[in-house]
């Protein structure tokens, strides 16, 4: 019996010299998979226009009712997105969202994308509601800020021709 105990403790002792598997999380972050679904980001076109057209299909597809969209009319002098309408209010409650990605699938313009941010913790429930300003992707150097003034008839189509539809 003593030999068995020594054998067993030998395994334990062997593991002392093996490298640790622990990820020192707040200092060192393990990369997520490319298809990981984290916090949402509302995308822009290269010229700075918002991809979201305020159709609220994401809100309809959401199984948790986490998304609230209110749309408004675009004007050529006050344009946020191509087409007739844009999302004037876009809110996602991160504490309701289950990160299923149905909103991504439902979006006709590929405006909403679930990115890789997962550090979502709050001191109160109200701060878990992300507004459009928080969700919107940052502006590239090539784009201009919305609302922008454009020539009439330039951005009439709400849904552009996509390379990879579906």
């Amino acid at each position, binding site marked *: 019996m003593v030999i068995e105990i020594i054998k067993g403790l030998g395994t334990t002792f062997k593991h002392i010299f093996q490298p640790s*598997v622990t990820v020192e999380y707040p200092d060192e972050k393990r990369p997520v998979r490319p298809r990981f679904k984290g916090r949402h980001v509302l995308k822009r076109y290269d010229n700075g226009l918002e991809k979201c057209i305020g159709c609220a299909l994401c809100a309809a597809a959401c199984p948790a009712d986490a998304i609230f969209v209110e749309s408004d009319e675009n004007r050529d002098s006050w344009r946020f997105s191509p087409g007739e309408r844009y999302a004037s209010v876009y809110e996602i409650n991160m*504490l309701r969202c289950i990160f299923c990605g149905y909103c991504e699938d439902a979006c006709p313009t590929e405006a909403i994308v679930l990115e890789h941010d*997962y550090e979502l*913790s*709050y001191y109160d*429930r109200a701060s878990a509601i992300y507004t459009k300003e928080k969700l919107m992707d940052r502006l590239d150097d090539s784009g201009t800020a919305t609302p922008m003034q454009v020539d009439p008839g330039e951005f009439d189509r709400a849904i552009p021709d996509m390379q990879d539809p579906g």
Partner: protein
Amino acid sequence: MGAEQKLGNLGIVTTTLESLVNWGRTGAMWPMLFGLACCAMEMIATQAANYDVSRFGMELMRASPRQSDLMIVAGRVSRKMAPVLRRLYDQMPEPKWVLAMGDCASCSGVFNNYALVQGVDEVVPVDVYVAGCPPRPEALIDGIMKLHEKVRGESITHWA
């Protein structure tokens, strides 16, 4: 501010009682085992070797409320479970904190129905809400770090 101010070359560390106690509280905040649903799996993963919350002084999950400081509500709380949750919270010694882990504990998430408590803040006061369904172990650790920040900011007048 805190236990890191040093007086000259004398090898003396000066601090306030407040920051010393808060440092002690963040350094050994023992969680209570309160796994109710799928979030419990991630809570167990957080405790295991890969993420290892023992690094933050959370040595092991206590099943006994008398020996724990932090209640991690991991999972959905049914109406029948709510009195039990409250009772266990009342049995925890002061100071005590509650972390609502995941969507279901925070606001019932996708389960918007009569059987579940719509957020454990109906029953107990919640300090930190962690979003995710379920949250990754990293997300839970991030919530714990936020709670530590909150505890470090507590003043002597708030001590129970």
